[in-house]
């Protein structure tokens, strides 16, 4: 009896964790096509508190599982808010994980976490140490002081930090009080008085000052253009065109795969047709770059890609599910030896895809199975309505009657978090569902899928997380060494854009 209870306990723990990690891949607390933002944030907050309360060590280790930035930030904050664990080894590991995760976050997100510490009144000794290490580890603090001024000030004052040189006076005594010897700080000061200095500042800082000086948007965009980061360029395409200016040129070779897919989908059909060769090549390159980082050789792969109307996403995540589907298409076609894709509403050319029509996943799934794929990847938000529940039934019967030996692997990749189910919506028990935010995570997520299926045990899941923790800490240590050798931080890595 006791043994049985133990098995059940283990099962519950595994299910809880799988659900949590899955949610952490997809949920960003933003509005989705079927769910509103409030429901999303309530749901994900509850999940965080629940897992933190019950499985603290695994909660911390989730930081290394490749989850999205929003959830990494949440975990860091929640861990810092709840004091440190009693066990010395856990304590050390958790501290290292938090520090590593914070360093790996894009700077604007990391600074947002530090600012939230003040908002949530978290000020224990560990939190202060983490803030101190992070701030002192930044390569170019003067740049941060200009670009993330209020956030850095919040972090510094809340954590009682001492800053060297002119930074302290710059942040706290007001930049008006004196002139600076630090060139960037001095530029910032001068930019309040002259137009010229403005164009030497980061775009986000200059933008506000340009309004203050009454510089017309067109002139401003033209002159600030050399200072734009890759993400800012991508982001400005639409608004620049709207303001009747010329959008800044984009270096398609640098953007990440999903970002690129979203950029392509935002273009009009005519433009997509005109620039077809260029866009196609850029997407293929981006896919190849992802695979170089995380190679995953696949054999005969079929993809069922959902381009129904619901894949248009929401105002906050515009066309994100469709973008993930398009990016997955390129990623899988690069990774697999043999590859075929089926869209729910057939398209002549993947690049010209648009979100339209109903979700009929059963028909393409049948074709994919008939083609004889080893691995079938379904990218969908989990709502199939033509006919409803057809995929669940289809896969159930397929597994039980036609393929009990599991020759064909089925994976459902879901970019949408369903707040009512506390997990990405699934197609029933026969297909494991994994959440994903970017198509780049696909290799990670495919590795995680066997846990979602429920065949692997809790200890395996723990071992998996532990191995990822090891890899992450090692990567972090390597990064810091490289960093000490003097990596330039002038142009910070691509920003996260809308999220």
């Amino acid at each position, binding site marked *: 009896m006791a043994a049985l209870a133990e098995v059940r306990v283990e099962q519950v723990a595994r299910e809880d964790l799988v659900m949590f990690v899955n949610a952490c891949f997809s949920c960003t607390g933003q509005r989705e*096509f*079927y769910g509103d933002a409030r429901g999303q944030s309530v749901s994900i907050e509850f999940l965080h508190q629940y897992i933190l309360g019950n499985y603290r060590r695994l909660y911390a280790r989730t930081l290394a599982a490749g989850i999205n930035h929003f959830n990494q930030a949440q975990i860091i904050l929640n861990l810092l808010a709840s004091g440190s664990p009693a066990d010395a080894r856990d304590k050390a590991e958790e501290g290292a994980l938090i520090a590593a995760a914070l360093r790996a976050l894009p700077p604007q997100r990391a600074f947002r976490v530090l600012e939230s510490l003040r908002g949530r009144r978290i000020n224990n000794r560990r939190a202060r140490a983490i803030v101190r290490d992070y701030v002192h580890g930044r390569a170019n603090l003067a740049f941060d002081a200009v670009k993330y001024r209020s956030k850095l000030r919040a972090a510094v004052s809340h954590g009682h930090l001492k800053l060297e040189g002119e930074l302290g006076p710059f942040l706290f005594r007001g930049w008006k009080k004196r002139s600076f010897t630090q060139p960037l700080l001095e530029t910032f000061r001068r930019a309040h008085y002259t137009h010229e200095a403005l164009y030497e500042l980061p775009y986000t800082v200059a933008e506000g000052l340009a309004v203050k000086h009454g510089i017309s948007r067109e002139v401003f965009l033209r002159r600030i253009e050399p200072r734009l980061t890759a993400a800012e360029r991508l982001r400005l395409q639409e608004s620049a065109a709207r303001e009747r200016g010329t959008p800044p040129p984009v270096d398609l070779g640098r953007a990440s795969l999903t970002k690129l897919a979203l950029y392509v989908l935002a273009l009009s059909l005519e433009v997509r047709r005109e620039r077809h060769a260029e866009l196609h090549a850029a997407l293929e390159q981006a896919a190849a770059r992802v695979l170089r980082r995380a190679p995953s050789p696949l054999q005969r792969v079929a993809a069922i890609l959902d381009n*129904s*109307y*619901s894949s248009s996403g929401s105002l906050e995540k515009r066309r994100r599910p469709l973008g993930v589907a398009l990016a997955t298409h390129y990623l899988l076609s690069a990774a697999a030896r043999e590859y075929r894709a089926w869209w729910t*509403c057939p398209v002549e050319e993947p690049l010209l895809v648009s979100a*339209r*029509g*109903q*979700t009929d996943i*059963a*028909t393409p799934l*049948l074709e994919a*199975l*008939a083609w004889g794929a080893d691995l079938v990847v379904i990218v969908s938000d989990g709502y199939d*309505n*033509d*006919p*409803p*529940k*057809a995929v*669940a*039934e*289809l896969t*159930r*019967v*397929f597994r*039980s*009657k*036609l393929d009990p030996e599991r020759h064909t692997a089925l994976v459902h990749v879901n970019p949408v978090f369903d707040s009512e189910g506390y997990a990405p919506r699934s197609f029933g028990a026969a297909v494991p569902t994994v959440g994903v935010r970017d198509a780049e995570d696909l290799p990670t997520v495919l590795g995680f899928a066997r846990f979602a299926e429920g065949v692997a045990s809790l200890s395996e899941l723990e071992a998996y997380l532990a191995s990822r923790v090891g890899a992450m800490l090692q990567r972090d240590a390597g990064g810091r060494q490289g960093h000490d050798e003097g990596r330039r931080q002038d142009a910070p890595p691509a920003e996260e854009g809308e999220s």
Partner: protein
Amino acid sequence: MTDARLIQRLEPAGLRLAPSQVCGGIRLVPVLRDEVRGDLRMTLRTYDDVAAVVSVKGGLKEPGLKYISYVPHGLVMTWGNRQAEAVYGTQLQAVDGKSLRAGPFSIRLLHRMVHREDRRQLRMLPLHLAMEGFLSLQFGGPEIAWAEYSREGLSRGLAPRSESSVPGWASPMLDGALRTFEIHPRQVGLLLFNADVLLSAFVVAHPDDYRALHRTLVEDFYCDLLLQYGFLGDAPELGLTLDDARVSSLEDLRNEVHRMRQDWADFHGFMAGSLFGASLSSTPVYKAGGFLLQRFHTSLDPAEENHIGEAIVGTDGTLEYLKTYRLSAAQTRRAYLLSQLAQCEWHLEDTAERLRTTASDLSLRLRNAGFGYLLKDSVLEAAQRKPRR
């Protein structure tokens, strides 16, 4: 002479139902059309006035029969032999009627429910056409001056007769359901169920038109069941299952899925049984080329679901346009009483006998239904006094 195009019984010929999409209590069933002819097109014309006064008889500003309502939009239909497709969307928006300023508001004066604007162009007010037909049922009142009827009833009949309904946007659930609904490529219509009760059906001739008109469903009006049943729980998702025993190959699996889809269509057809297949009384409204615009109502029996609506039928008998409104129970009751009175030439005693009740009970029923103003006060008082003795 009866026109063959006049509908006796609503048959969804050439139309196909697809599995429903559910949002909360609202179930939306797509109606698909496989063969699109393209010679009848519809566009939307919006009016942003607080109310519209439609002159049903008489000129625009002359005294006569008027229909007054909030009319958010009208439909403009264009027909012709293959020309409609080419002409579609190219016309300039004609000035429709007149706009009157009334203080801070504007009132639109419209000429007739259905108005020919060009050789092959017609403007109509959807649902209002059917509602106007419903309101004008037995509108004249008693033809023989029976002693029970009031002076007002005898001289003016039922004027003004009014009915109220609920606009679609009164239900946030409907708005959400229409927003998240995924339109099929061949979809030309929609059956709208609330708490699995059919509220309305809407079918047009061309899928592109449907796509453009989809959101207008939220501006249409529905019977009060939209709100009343809106408080009920969610409509069940009704997942059908596949039969394991009949599957031994992928081909079987494909057939089973096909059967599942068919089952859904049959089931929805069954759910809409009180509209499709029920016998109708229809009256022709307008002949537009080979198309006949007509309005209809079902039996008006209070024991059944009742719908009113308008339809366009082509020369070959296909249903090209359909829009229906489900009558609420009270509305059905009123129509029923009036039709019974009319059949007995408005004689109270005869009608009471026909309805197996007494004349005084019938007068009370009339008063409760809102037709108290037809009867003399003394008759009503006598009827009210009677049960107390």
